[in-house]
């Protein structure tokens, strides 16, 4: 059965009729032609469909579109402004943090989410118990926080460097 929903994607309003079975990922790719979120495993295990959903990084392959009527979505395509890449995207380019590139849009969106979560003081499982205040995004923290994004090329070393550089640049800008 079809239902009309509204999605705001990368700053643009869309009205789209979706079957109740449609995921947010399929609504973006198949209905709206927004193909930066990638369909990898389609079971929530690889992270390539990650976007910022209402401000938080989230996988979209297990989220039903009809349940996210009215959502604000930012994909890797919508991160930059005025033709400029987002600092995290710049860092990925600078550090050669991509090989085949299929997982990259999800990695980039996830990294943007990681920086926000760390800025809010959110712990990860490797953060010391009782540690308060600023989270230091060292290699261990970045690897743990980015672990929901798989890269079959194994470009992890450069991805971690890119996220570290983006974190440092953001810290310097504060």
């Amino acid at each position: 059965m079809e239902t009309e929903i509204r999605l705001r994607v990368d700053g643009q309003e869309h009205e789209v009729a979706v079957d109740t079975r449609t995921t947010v990922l399929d609504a973006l790719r198949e209905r709206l032609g927004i193909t930066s979120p990638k369909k990898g495993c389609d079971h929530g295990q690889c992270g390539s469909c990650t976007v910022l959903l209402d401000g938080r990084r989230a996988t979209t392959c297990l989220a039903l579109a009809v349940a996210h009527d009215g959502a604000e979505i930012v994909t890797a395509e919508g991160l930059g402004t005025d033709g400029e890449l987002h600092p995290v995207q710049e860092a990925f380019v600078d550090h050669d943090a991509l090989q085949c590139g299929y997982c990259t849009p999800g990695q980039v969106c996830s990294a943007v989410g990681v920086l926000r979560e760390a800025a809010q003081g959110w712990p990860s499982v490797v953060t010391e118990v009782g540690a308060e205040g600023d989270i230091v995004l060292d290699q261990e923290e970045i690897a743990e926080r980015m672990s929901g994004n798989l890269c079959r090329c194994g470009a992890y070393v450069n991805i971690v460097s890119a996220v570290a550089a983006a974190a440092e640049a953001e810290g310097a800008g504060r």
Partner: protein
Amino acid sequence: MKPFRYERATDAAHAVATVAAHPGAAFLGAGTNLVDHLKLGITAPDLLVDVSRLPLDEVAELDDGGLRVGANVRNADLAAHPAVRARYPVLSQALLSGASGQLRNLATTGGNLLQRTRCAYFQDPSTPCNKRDPGSGCAALEGWTRYHAILGASSHCVAVHPSDMAVAMAALDAVVVTLGPDGERRIPVTDFHRLPGDAPHRDTVLRHGELITAVELPGLPWAARSRYRKVRDRASYAFALVSVAVALDLEDDGRTVREARIALGGIAHKPWRAERAEQALRGLPATEESCRTAADAETADAHPLRDNAFKIPLVHNTLVAVVRDLVPETPGSSLEGAR
């Protein structure tokens, strides 16, 4: 995927009445487990009642010093909540051990309790599974059992419960609050999940149409000294082979165990409250030797399968490691050797 109708619940009572009136209806929370099951053909409801926008998303203080966690509180929010981090670090760590950052941003407290086993045979509709299809048999019994149960299983099912959060909640004596057609119920989380027996298709004691509205964490000041440790096949983003949640109350000497709360994950059909281990540890110094005695007491009745006998020593070693993290170093402590 079979077509289904979708309805967004306007309030909890409406959601309960709607699902209760439709045998083929199910609640939809974030859907991170349910939607996967719809895709895999494990379940095929004809109506989903979306409860994800019900205002059950508060973490509130209770009079006894505990916390009431609304069923729609996101795993990421609960893990980061200052009161949870300070008063129940075991719960924060368990939540952060589960899934990935993206999934924790979606998944909810109520949904996490209801996630179903990740047994590979349950997830594969081409194989027999008494949990998915009652009476069809169990492919795991003669299959690959590295991830399966060593305690509390039956000849009908050897699957384990996948939640980390629920293991910490079992150690904390949390209470699940539900709303059903007959009103509110309060169910200790240790009684909430079932052992398989001859009805492994029933994961919990919930009735059709009964909705989780909250989880209450009782006040337990000494739970500030608590930890969760999860052992898995890769460093992160994998289900537990074994996990251990411990909260310790120590005597004034800083090393004798006055009271212990221990729960284990990855070894049974439900979050396993380790009462025998707790009993064994009480009154003893928190040393490696006493932890091993406690683990022996708990695993005495273990029935390992072909591929998972390693879980018995793994429970022992992990319990030692968690207690080592919790007890301040004392010169000559025999836990030093395990460091």
